[in-house]
Each structure stands twice: as C-alpha cells, then as structure tokens.
C-alpha cells in the first residue's frame, strides 16, 4: 500500500520560567533543612497527626491549629521502584531507585531517591535513613537520598 502524503506541520515550542513560592509551611521546612539538617512536620493540636510534608492546616479537622515538631531522619520503606529510564525518557544501563519513606514520628513521609543499595537489597517495610548534603541550599535535594539502615 502506498503511504499517503502527510499533512503539513509547523514547529513550535513553549519555554516559560517560573519562580514558585514554597508557602509558609514550605519556608519553615526548607529553612530548617538547610540551616540545621532537621526534618520538620506540623502536628495538628486537635487530632495529633504529624504532617510531612508540613501544612499550615489539617485537612481532616479543617483547622489551622498546628505546632512544629521535629521528626526523625529515618523511617520505614513503604514501597520502592526502580526505573530503567531517565525522566527525559533515555534508556539507562543501571537503574535508579525511588522509595516512599514513612518518617518515624510522623503520619506522612517523603518520596525520595534510594541509594547505596541495589533493588535486590530492598524490601518493603525495611528501615531506611536520610543522607544529607554537605552544603545545603534550602530545597528537597538537601536530602541527597535515603539508604538502608540498621534497626
């Protein structure tokens, strides 16, 4: 079958730069992370849940009645995934890994890179700990990654 002639197309691109506010809760979280290598959450004074990432309100009690608490830089690996593609779609020889970590002392957690291990070393439910950057800058990558920890 002869290939039919394609309709014409035009090239385009959208390139827009942004500067996003991290908000009141994000400001405190990232400042403490940068200046003291601390992971902070907000505790609802009504239901007692500790939110990480922090928020200035509790979505369940629907109040703005929160206090700041420090949570531990370690926790439990809820699940993990390895990817054989970079986020811009390139195929990789060695996989990189992400995990969801329930931080001790919180009812939430972080999704972050998992390193110093291979996929076969990881298990759902195992303890992991944060490794911090030497020269922090006030963003989520001030935590370099999580790695398997001793109990």
């Amino acid at each position, binding site marked *: 079958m002869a290939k039919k002639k394609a309709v014409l197309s035009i090239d385009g691109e959208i390139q827009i730069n942004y500067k996003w506010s991290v908000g009141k809760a994000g400001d405190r979280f990232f400042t403490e992370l940068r200046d003291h290598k601390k992971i902070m959450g907000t505790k609802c004074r009504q239901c007692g849940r500790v939110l990480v*990432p922090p928020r200035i309100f509790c979505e369940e009690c629907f109040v703005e009645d929160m206090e700041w608490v420090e949570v531990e830089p370690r926790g439990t690996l809820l699940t993990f995934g390895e990817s054989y593609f970079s986020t811009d779609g390139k195929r990789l020889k060695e996989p990189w890994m992400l995990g*969801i970590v*329930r931080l001790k002392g919180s009812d939430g957690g972080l*999704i972050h890179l998992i390193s110093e291990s291979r996929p076969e070393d990881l298990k*759902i439910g195992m303890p992991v700990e944060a490794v911090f950057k030497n020269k922090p800058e006030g963003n*989520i990558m001030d935590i370099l990654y999580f790695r398997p920890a001793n109990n």
Partner: protein
Amino acid sequence: MPKRVAIVGAGMQKYEFRKEQTVEEMVFDVARNALENSHLSKDDIDSVVFGSAVDAFCGINNSDKVAIDASGGLLKPTMRNSTSGSTAISTPILGYTHVASGMHDLVMVLCYEKMSENDSAQAVFNTVYDEAFVRPIGLNVPIQCGLEARAYLHKYGITERQMAKVSVKNRGNALSNPYAQLPMKLTVEDVLASPYLSWPVKLLDTSPVTDGARALILASEDVARELTDDPIWIKGVGRGADSVWFMGRQNKDLGKLDYAYLAVFFFQAKAGIRDPMAEIDYAEVYDPFTYKEMQHCEAMGLCSEGGAGRMIDEGISLKDGPLPVNASGGLQGEGNPIGAGMSRLCWCYLQAKGQAGACQVPKDVNNAVANGWGGMYQYNAVMVIGRD
C-alpha cells in the same frame, strides 16, 4: 431527586499516534458521528460539555475554545471539565448533572486529547507533580506505577504472569475493534519478555500515547423515549478523591485504593446494585497499566479484594467469559488519549445496544460499568448504565 437520564448516541473515530486531524477536526468528526447515530441535528442539542486532561499535551491552552464551533456548540451554554485521566468519566458525570437537574434535555459530552505532538509526554506528566517536594526528585509515571504496583503485588500476592494475561487479553480484543491503535496477538511470554520500565511494570503492561476523541449524547427521560424504544439509562454515578500526598494518605499501604472503593460505594447506592459480580454483565475498566485493570476490578466489586489474579486466571474477564472486561481492547489495545478515555463508557453503551460489531460479547448486556482514574493517582470516577 435527580431526573432520569439516558445515553442515546455515541460518536467514535479511530485512535492513532500522530493523528493528522487538529483538535478542532477531531471534535467535528465525533460530534457529527454522534448526531448521525442518534438521528439528531446540532440544533437539537441544548448544551455541550467538553473534557480533556492537560493542555500541555497539545501545547494549546484553553484548547476547548476550538471545540465550541466544532461540536455544534456555538452560542450555546458550554463548559470544560478536567480531572486528569478521570476526566474520562467525570465529564459524562458533569453532562449527566446538566440533564438530571432538569436544566437541559439534550446534552453532548465531548472528550478529546491530542497527546502525540509534543516531543515527550513524560515531560508533560512530570509537570503535574508537586513543584517543591516531588518534581526535583525526578519522579515519572513509569516509576510511580512501579511504586504502586509493587505495593499492590506485595499486599495481595498478584504475579507478573497474571498482569501479562491482562495485556494479552486486551491487545487481543483490540483486533476486533476498527478504532484501535494497538491491536496485537501476543502470548504471555511476549509480555514477560518485554523490557522493564519499573519492576513489575513492563513495556507491554502499558498503554500507548494516543490522539483521539469521543462523543456521547445524553437525553432527559421524555426526549429519550421519543428517540428510542430501548433507552439505556445512567443508573448510578460515583466519584472519590484522595489526597495528592500519596506518601501520607489514609490508605497507608498504597496497595488498596480507598478512594476507588469509595467511588464505587456511591454508584452502587444510587444504582441499587448490591452484588456487582452477579448484577453487572459487562465492564470497561480503566487500564492504562495491566495492574490498574486488576485494582479497579477489585475496587468495583467485579471480583473479590485481592482476587483479580484469580479472575484473569479463570478466564472470567475474557470476551466470552462470564464477566467480560474491555472487549474493546481497553486503553491498552484501543489507545489511551487520557481524557478521551470516555471511550470506555462509549463501549459500554455500544455493548448494551448490541452495536459493538466484532467486539460484541456473546451474552445479553443489561448492566454495564465503566470507570476513569487519574489525577495524582488519587481520583476515581464510575458510571453504571443499563436497562430498567
């Protein structure tokens, strides 16, 4: 009390990668097809509701503006709905409310998506993630599916082989669908041998990048009875949405989708369905990945919780099985133009009417259910349709 609402026509077109039609041309194509199939003209339609997921896919903001003329919606009340993948079903629910409220008698629901003209659909998906806490980590859709699928398999003992059987079923079913983008005759071994994107999700567990559109026409009870002796009613709708913070949700294990079960609780209550396995004859289940069909079958009560592996092993969801799922090929075989996943509901309607052509299942379809899923992996919308 909501008024009764019937589906009276569907508009279909072929799903393709790099479709030559513009958004406007796709919309016109399916709007005209839906009007022809329901023996209506554009002037009969009171209102048009549009659905598409993320404008960044097509690179044209407010892309619904061109759908006004192309749908026959000029100078009529129109509006656009967008809830990511679940747009597929939340948009017909929005159309339903337009009629159920008594505001309009005939409403066209039109979903479209043009996904393939950007150079990276994954880069577009990445812009959905939280800008401060998640995006810098480099999360993408395949690895997020890996996170979720690993938790699901871990919780219920589902296997990669069972996931593969869903792919074989859906791509095989698509061989009978004239609108399908990716029909394939596969074996389980073919699927298992395809490359991993993120364990346990492999290339042949996923759905393709797709352009396409679908339309449905909804009618009030009086108008539906004028148009047809055999109306297919919207019997129940449900929606459930969880927090976008998937690291700290109420469902702590990520394997069971509380929000999906919640949506189903609502539709069952409204549709008066007590036992979906016995009362639902046919299902089109949102299956962007094989394990998602399995999770959604469980949430919708089409099998027991954790029973989706057995469901596919026993052939229950095959085209000639007792509860066929995605005889059209689903998103895996027909194509996955995110918001235009409304095709799932179109196929339920065609099956109920006996108009599904070579995809028709060898049984009576009196009750059928379709769902749509998306957002930050946290939004499910469900609709059940059928006869009295």
